[in-house]
């Protein structure tokens, strides 16, 4: 099962995502990120520094949300976007010899995805020493266009309802 087309179009067609995390005192934190969406696992991935505030927040509270949108400064009816909510997981960081094959594969796949999506920006820059991959397991997604909303959930069996 896949997400409705309008949601997928937004997820595939945009470069910036805005990730909201919050610490154990419910203080939100917001940062723009580059991201990729993986249809197969229905996850959103982004790369960040392991010392960043969002990584610290995620280790205190894994609930995150991310908004990806198209904004029109003139006509609000053209504003369109999605907000996905879910649990974030930080892929463990270890020297390359100690990484599981699965993690290595994930790093490779995600890196290649990023490279093709953000080619002009990241060029051939390798992953940095402190970079970690964060994956967001989407549990709920809201889509809007102008004043119209639509929302979907993923149930325990992975079905979209």
């Amino acid at each position, binding site marked *: 099962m896949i997400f409705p087309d309008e949601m997928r179009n937004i997820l595939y067609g945009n470069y910036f995502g*805005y990730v909201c995390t919050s610490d*154990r005192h419910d*203080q*939100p*934190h*917001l940062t723009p990120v580059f991201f990729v969406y993986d249809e197969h696992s229905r996850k959103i991935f982004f790369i960040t520094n392991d010392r960043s505030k969002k990584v610290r927040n995620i280790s205190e509270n894994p609930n995150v949300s991310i908004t990806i949108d198209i904004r029109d*400064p003139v006509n609000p009816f053209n504003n369109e976007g999605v*907000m996905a909510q879910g649990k974030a997981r930080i892929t463990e960081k270890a020297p390359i010899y100690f990484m599981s094959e699965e993690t290595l594969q994930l790093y490779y796949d995600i890196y290649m995805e990023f490279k093709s999506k953000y080619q002009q*920006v990241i060029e051939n820059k390798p992953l940095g020493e402190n970079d970690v991959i964060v994956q967001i397991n989407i549990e709920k997604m809201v889509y809007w266009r102008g004043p119209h909303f639509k929302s979907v959930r993923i149930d325990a069996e992975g079905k979209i309802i």
Partner: protein
Amino acid sequence: MHESAKKEMKWIYEEIVGRIPPFSMLSYQYSILLQLFFLLVIGLILGFIFNLGTISLLYGSLAILVAVSWSLLILQLGPTLRKFRAPLSKDENELLEQYKGILFHRNHYEAIPGLAIFITFMLYLFYYGPNLLESWLGKNPHILLLLFVSLLIWDICYRMGLGLWTSVLALWRSLRLKKLSEKRTELEHTPYTELRSLRRLDINNAFFGIISLLLIPLLQTDRLLVTIIFTFMVFVTLISAVSAYIVSKVPWLPPDIYNLVNESSFAYIGVSFKGVTHVTPVVYVFDGQEIFFNTSKESKKLKIMQKNNKVAFLIDKRDMSNIYENKAVMFTGVVKIYGLRDVPLQLKQMLEVRKLFIKKYPEYTRKYSTSELPRAWQLTPIIARILVEVKPAKIIYWRGAKQISVPV
């Protein structure tokens, strides 16, 4: 300023009191209350010994009250300025150092106006004064009473001088600060907290002026002195109010962030309740000092903010062709949600913000007003669209890939 100089940021009075036990053992508010109490007790004892009338005791108590209230207000300057963080602008930092330098000068210039007032007043009182002394103490008062009254007069005159000294200096500082703030570049600024404390000190000084009116009953028999007190009151209050107003117009954001906030059209608001976060785009306006956004009465974020008013608010400029041109600023802090109960006091501000919205987003306003929209989306102010103000406590700024934390 060097550490040693910092410790010396005291006036004569603060220094003397700070060295005499038991005052030296108390925090300054308690020490002032204790002084009030001592003076009162001494005054009352003298009053009984020399058989003074009730009116003399009342006059004495009023003078003590004025002196002590003035102390309470003016002695906040030292501790507040001691805690002051250095502005992130060389010129503004120099100005504030210069201001503190003059205010708490080693040579104690602050005592000069007070001394001048004291000498003039004493001469007036003893040589030209029509029966003021007599109305206070009766005929041929004892030397001890005269000494005590002189002490009280010194207390009052010294503080009057401080009031003049601090308010004139404050006005000078505010005018210079405003002027320097117009020449800032990039991330230069004086943090918000510091600007706010300067304003608070100026407002204190305005009250200082008003308190002088309490002296009028003591001087009521002398037209000239009443006029002088009145002039003093108007002078100090007006100068301090003007200074506070000018400080409130100094931008608290450095130019880079100010321009980003001023020029960008969209923002994102992140909220959180019981650990579950929520982030959506919003339109916002900036009046040079405060940031406001609008939300629907039915929106999820409003419901969350009503339960937890901590937010993160992000404004950015995105450019895919050159990531080094990307800029973003995130404010974390709390929000104030405006409602019907704010109308009586804040109506003017609410209407001004509405005007800013109409100016910044003319199409939005027009489209939001159509009746085809769901009711919650219509731009009926206050009722369906809720006005929210962002009150930042922390600022993070990104330029290209660089992250900079900016003090608020």
